[in-house]
């Protein structure tokens, strides 16, 4: 899925993806790594993460209540990169998926992953779009919904996990 926009930061000349998989919300210790710089940790309670083999039957929260893929605006990368490392494997930057860590459409100036100190880490870069008020997500049942950025954090996190036992209280 190529959107025609170029990644101005890296991979000049290659198409950048503005969509990426949802790795989850990192609830109940479903976090790999304890990295606090640059790439950050990645979550493993969502549909897509490095090595994930999630089947429909694993989505106990219901496919209609689980986010699969969302829009990304800031720091796009090509899907083909998958994930890469700058620390010899310790620090895994997942380019094809992202953590649900910050609110949708967070202020990119505030949460820049290029900032020093790097308080917003690469894997945590927020889902975002150019649409006012939210971003589009594909749910696990293949339906597309516009999720408003006013969504409460606990509800957003619940949507991001596949089997955390929450009831979905969000409707668009």
């Amino acid at each position, binding site marked *: 899925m*190529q959107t025609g926009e170029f990644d101005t930061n890296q991979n000049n000349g290659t198409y950048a993806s503005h969509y990426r998989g949802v790795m989850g919300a990192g609830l109940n210790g479903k976090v790999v790594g304890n990295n*606090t710089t640059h790439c950050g940790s990645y979550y493993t309670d969502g549909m897509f993460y490095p090595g994930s083999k999630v089947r429909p039957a694993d989505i106990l929260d219901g496919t209609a209540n689980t986010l699969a893929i969302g829009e990304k605006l800031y720091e796009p990368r090509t899907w083909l990169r998958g994930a890469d*490392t*700058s620390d010899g494997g310790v620090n895994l930057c997942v380019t094809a998926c992202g953590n649900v860590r910050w*609110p949708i459409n967070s202020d990119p100036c*505030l949460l820049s992953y290029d900032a020093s*100190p790097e*308080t917003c880490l690469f894997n945590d870069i927020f889902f975002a779009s150019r649409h006012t008020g939210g971003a589009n997500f594909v749910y696990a049942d293949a339906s597309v919904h516009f999720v408003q950025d006013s969504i*409460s*954090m606990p509800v957003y996190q619940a949507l991001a996990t596949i089997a955390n036992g929450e009831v979905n209280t969000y409707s668009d």
Partner: protein
Amino acid sequence: MMTPARAVPGLRHAWAWLCLLAGLAGCGEQSPKTYLVEGKISFKGKLLPLGILTFVPKDGKAEVCKINPDGSYKLRAPAGKHAVEVIAVPAREGGRRDPNVEGGIDYRGVPAPKPLVPEKYNRYTTSGIEVEVLPSDSNTIDIILP
């Protein structure tokens, strides 16, 4: 597939914006009223010189702001109770430039900086810190992490 449209990216974007504006006309939900909150944030009696502070209300959007070098912060948040989370990790030093790695710098062999606050403060679910924003623009809330 590479498309030849690269020559006129501005035009393509103009169309995208037009479609977007047309699609949004007349829609959009009123966001809740927010109030100014200011204060200082400290850990074990020392002001934090950096980091990100987040207010997470029971319902509604989480509000995020930077912690300034003097330990102060300022944000707007809806009235009510908010769970607080704080992440404070100093910048990494050193590393070698390498355009082939993510971020452009190879940090192999460079020790990661130590976070300034314990991990439990990184999540609103475990921080144990709660604040209440009053419906006024003169909220002064000093956040004290023990």
